[in-house]
């Protein structure tokens, strides 16, 4: 095993950290809370110029052929700086197009994304689906050579601004069936595509996406009709792995913030960091952060594993660990800041809220616990000789 970053990866990480510290301090995200889009094309372009938007895509598609470990390094820094640009939704939609799409579809969507001229969104969750990507009630009905899409997708990150949205819809079967799910890529402004922006609890924007009889041609379908479940599962797991990486950035930042505060805040004539009760709490925050980081690394590596069981157990483990650690670390960060931590003007609350969002998206703790224990690997090794 080797957990060391290559020189290139180290450079990528330190460049990203320095760039975000300088160009996107948390004050920028704060100001964008009042903006109806929630991010800026200028910053998006800068991210493209640094090569980040092409990192996940092979050279054949105009990208830089990085691994997800590389991508996760960048995402962790985006988490550390609470950068609101739609990196993850664009990554997911772009990857869906890359995996399932035709060369023509690649050409249509990927170069402009990699150049930072467009952004994408990925819409899979529905009102009744909770975190199950196969629970698709939206339908895509064939009419001649067209499809007509009806249904609703909820909390679509960057749905408010995306130039195109990848959506799942059912071409056959019923909710919960793996067969019969298809993916479509819908362009902004398509008739019947209803975009209702919503403010999310972490101060960002997303959208509820209504499919009110959106008519598209076959050319909008990604991959074979009814065969999208596998890709969908992979993309949702990619989202979960990305959430883990971002969460590690969040945890590392609030840990540092808290340790700095314990070193400087005085009560009872001493620095509060001299109280052993608080030292041990800070240590537990550190321990939890390191463990979440470890499972996040595991998830980054396994997300590309061809064996779906290996992939799913690793992703689910990481997502559960993220939830436990992330909640603990951010809650304690507020607690140890005392009253100042309850104010909106202090950054620690912004990280706390972002952590909640990361815990929910792409499957919460309960969902991933259930999925982890449902994998065949869970009972492997306990077979008796009797049968």
């Amino acid at each position, binding site marked *: 095993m080797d957990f060391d970053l290559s020189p290139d990866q180290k450079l990528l990480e330190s460049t990203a950290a320095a760039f975000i510290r300088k160009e996107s301090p948390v004050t920028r995200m704060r100001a964008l809370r009042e903006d109806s889009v929630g991010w800026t094309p200028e910053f998006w372009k800068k991210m493209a110029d640094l090569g980040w938007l092409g990192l996940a895509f092979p050279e054949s598609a105009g990208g830089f052929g990085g691994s997800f470990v590389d991508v996760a390094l960048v995402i962790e820094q985006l988490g550390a700086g609470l950068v609101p640009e739609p990196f993850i939704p664009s990554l997911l939609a772009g990857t869906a197009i890359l995996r399932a799409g035709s060369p023509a579809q690649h050409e249509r969507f990927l170069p402009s994304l990699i150049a930072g001229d467009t952004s994408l969104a990925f819409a899979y969750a529905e009102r009744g689906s909770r975190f199950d990507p196969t629970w698709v009630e939206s339908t895509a009905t064939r009419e001649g050579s067209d499809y007509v899409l009806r249904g609703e997708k909820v909390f679509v990150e960057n749905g408010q601004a995306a130039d195109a949205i990848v959506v799942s819809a059912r071409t056959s079967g019923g909710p919960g069936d793996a067969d019969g799910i298809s993916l479509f890529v819908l362009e902004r402004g398509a008739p019947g595509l209803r975009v209702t922006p919503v403010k999310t609890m972490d101060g960002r924007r997303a959208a509820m996406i209504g499919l009110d009889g959106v008519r598209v041609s076959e050319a909008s379908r990604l991959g074979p009709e009814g065969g999208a479940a596998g890709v969908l599962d992979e993309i949702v797991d990619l989202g979960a792995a990305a959430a883990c990486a971002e969460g590690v950035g969040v945890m590392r930042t609030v840990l540092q913030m808290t340790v700095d505060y314990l070193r400087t805040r005085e*009560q009872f004539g001493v620095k509060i960091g001299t109280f052993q009760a608080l030292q041990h709490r800070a240590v537990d925050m550190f321990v939890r952060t390191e463990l979440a980081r470890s499972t996040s690394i595991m998830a980054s590596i396994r997300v590309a594993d061809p064996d779906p069981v290996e992939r799913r157990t690793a992703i689910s483990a990481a997502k559960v660990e993220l939830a436990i650690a992330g909640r603990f670390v951010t809650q304690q960060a507020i607690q140890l800041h005392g009253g100042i931590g309850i104010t909106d003007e202090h950054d620690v609350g912004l990280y706390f809220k972002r952590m*909640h*969002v990361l815990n929910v998206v792409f499957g919460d703790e309960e969902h991933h616990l259930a999925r982890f224990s449902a994998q065949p690997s869970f009972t492997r090794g306990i077979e008796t000789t009797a049968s």
Partner: protein
Amino acid sequence: MDLSFTPEQSAFRDEVRAWLRTAMPAHIREKAAIDAHFEHDEIMEWHRILHRKGWVAPHWPAEWGGPGLDVARRFILTEELELAGAPALSPFGLSMVGPLLMQFGTEAQKKRFLPKILAGEEVWCQGYSEPNAGSDLASLKLRAEPDGNGSYVLNGQKTWTTYAQHADWIFVLTRTDPNAKKQAGISFFLADMKTPGITVRPTLTIGGTPAFCDTFFENAVVPAENLVGPLNGGWTLAKALLGHERTGIAAVGLSTRAIRRVKRIAATTLERGRPLLEHPGFRARIARLEIELTALKMANYRAIVSAQEGHAPGPESSILKIRGSEILQQCFVLAMEVMGHDSLSWFNEAGVIPGLEQWVASSFNYTRATTIYGGSNEIQRNVIAKLILNLPSA
């Protein structure tokens, strides 16, 4: 030992419930049903309704307009009000400075202030904490100096003053002898918020509401008759008041309601077409929390019975504060989990999520404060370690 309430106590509970069914105006009832945040005016409206009924200050003696209920009935009344989701009244007058004045105030002070607190004509806030005096309250610096004309001049700053923007009066701890050792030079004053030189600046909380303020004093002149208790004897009052603040801190009614809300949301949230409430994993988690709340409730009852037998609430109240605050926080963590994607919404802007209990996210954020205010849980643990377990100091 006996776990049941007496028939008289149960009859009283029925009476409260029956009254509550009709007492809340429709607009308050609607908000109560979804546990929405109440505006100051609505809280005061409810204050006056309770006042007319004679129930606004269950813990006040009849002499000062209290209903003369025994401890158990007071508890029942409070619990039923919480369970009904009635607006929580501002505690600063009714539960803090009111009882304190009864104990330490002059006759003139009692006559001047208590009736107006009861009637809701004057609203109070608490000026204890300062930027450098939080857990270490005794290091406070707000100065009160005699001006030679029988008044005191106040200079300095208080912080985290909850709802100071709505208050008519503030009670403040001030430093009146800078040379005495920390606790010895502190005095307790009452100040009219309209006094020239007193200004407030509301601050947004992470719950998205302006709940607390910075309060500034610049040459604010306060008459000597507003000193409560002896000059430089304020620390005794400060501690007595914190004792009052901690009664009811277990918030059993709030948590009971919060768990009901979790179940309500889980009953209407579907997972693979079935209500989440039927999901064994979630049921077990809700049950575990409910059982922890039951333990707290029983501990609370024990404390009440002990109080009824005439024992003053001691450091044991820290048990209620620690668990009460933690359980309330857990209720909101669970509510957010049950809500799934809906929990991502901030106030259900534009009403895009049908039936969404839109205040959950705000409360989830804000309840991080319950383990901090009123003496943080770390400080409560220090209290138990020292005063109950008799552990030595480092």
